C-alpha cells in the first residue's frame, strides 16, 4: 500500500469530521459548547495539515507549517489585536503568527506586548535561541 492509499481515507475522515463540526457550530447557541467545538476543529485542522505533509500524527511533533500566502501591512496586522472577534496575530522577523489560543498570551497580551504588533525586537531580547516560534501557526508575512 503506498502513501496515497494510506493517507487518503484518513484525510477523508478528517474532512468529514470538520464538516460535521461546522454544521454543529451553526446550531449551537451555547458559548461553552461552541468553544469545545472550536477546539475540536483546531485539532482536526492540525491533524489534516500533518497528513497533507505526509507525516504521521504525533503528540510531540511540531506542527508543519502550511505555505504562507498572505502578506500583511503594519496597518492590517494592527487589526488582529485579539479583541472583539479578531484573532490575535503577532509578527516576528517578518513572519506573522497566530497566538489567539496560546496560553502565554492571556488577554492577547504577553509581557507587555499586545497582539497586532511587530514584536521582533522584544523577541530578540527574551527568546533568542529558544524554539518557541516553531510551535506557533504561521498565518502570513509582513510586506517589505
Amino acid at each position, binding site marked *: 500500500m503506498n502513501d496515497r492509499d494510506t493517507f487518503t481515507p484518513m484525510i477523508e475522515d478528517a474532512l468529514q469530521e470538520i464538516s460535521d463540526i461546522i454544521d454543529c457550530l451553526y446550531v449551537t447557541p451555547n458559548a461553552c459548547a461552541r468553544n469545545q467545538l472550536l477546539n475540536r476543529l483546531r485539532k482536526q485542522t492540525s491533524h489534516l495539515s500533518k497528513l497533507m505533509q505526509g507525516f504521521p500524527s504525533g503528540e510531540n511533533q511540531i506542527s508543519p507549517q502550511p505555505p504562507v500566502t498572505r502578506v500583511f501591512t503594519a496597518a492590517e496586522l494592527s487589526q488582529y489585536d485579539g*479583541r472583539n472577534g479578531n484573532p490575535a496575530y503577532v509578527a516576528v522577523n517578518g513572519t506573522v503568527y497566530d497566538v489567539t489560543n496560546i496560553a502565554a498570551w492571556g488577554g492577547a497580551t504577553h509581557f507587555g506586548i499586545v497582539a497586532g504588533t511587530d514584536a521582533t525586537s522584544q523577541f530578540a531580547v527574551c527568546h533568542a535561541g529558544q524554539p518557541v516560534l516553531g510551535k506557533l501557526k504561521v498565518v502570513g508575512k509582513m510586506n517589505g
Partner: protein
Amino acid sequence: MNTTSGSCPNFSMRLETASMLFHKAVDAVQQGQIPKRNLIWLELTGCAGNIISLLNGEDPDFKGLISQMVHYLYDNSLMAAEGEFAMDQLFDALDSDYILAVEGAVSTKDEGLYTIIGRWKGRPITAYEVIQTFGERAAHVIAVGTCASDGGISAARPNPAQCVGIQNLLNRKVIKLPGCPCHPDWFMGTLAYTLLFGEPELDARQRPLMFYSTLIHDLCPRRPCFDRGVFATQLGEDTCMFKLGCRGPVTRVDCPIRKWNDRVNWPIGDDGPCIGCAMFGFPDKMEPFVRFDTT
C-alpha cells in the same frame, strides 16, 4: 471547581515541605546538630507587605522562627528597640555570622537618599548603603518578595526613585523569593533548608525549585477548562480566565497548592485572574491585569 485533590501526593507532599523543613531545623538546633544562626531582616523601599505576610504564617509560624530556629537580630518593624539603639543592634551584628533577608527594592537615585532606614552616629543610613554593607558580608542573602527580587512595584514605571532589585547592587548570589507578597512558607522553608543543608537547589533565576518549579497553569484547578476551550468572559465566572488576561501560564510558583491566609483560598479560587505577582517584570510586564472582549 476550586478544590485541589487531597489524595494527590504531588499536592499533599508539597504542602508539607515548609513545615517539615522547619521542624527538622528546630530539632537540629535543639539537639545541637546545627548552630542557632543570626537572622537580619532589612526592610528597604517597599510596603512592609512581606513581613506582614510572614506574620500570617501558620505551621511554620513566626513565633517558632524567632524563638526556636534563629536569633532574630534586627527588623525595624518588629523589634523593641528604637532609633539609635536599634541601629546599634544592626551594626553590632555586622562582623558576626548572619543570614540576611531583605524585603523591598533599593532606591538608587541621588545615592539612595529617597529611602533612609535610620540614623546611626548622627548620619542617615540609606537602603543603598546598607544593602551593600550587609549584603556582601552575609553568609546567605534571601530576597523576600518581588521588590527585593526584581524591583517590583517600587520599580514600576515611571520609577522616580530609580529603584532596582538587590541583585543589581550585589556581586554575589542572591536567593530570590518573588511574590507580592512572599508566601510565609516560601521564606520559612527556604530559610530552614539553608540552615540544615546550605543553599537550596535554584533555577536559572535563583528561585528555589522546591517552591518555584511549576507554572500556576500546570497545577491550576481550572486547567481542564482551558484544555476544553471553556473561558470566562467576565470576572466572577468559575471557568478558565485565560481570555481575561490570566498570567498563570507564565508565572512559576505553587499558589494552586499552597493558597494563602492559612491555605484558605487564592486569587483564581475567588474568580480573579492571576496577575503574575511572582513573575519577574511584575507589575509593568504583567499588565493589563484584566482585559475584556478578548476573542
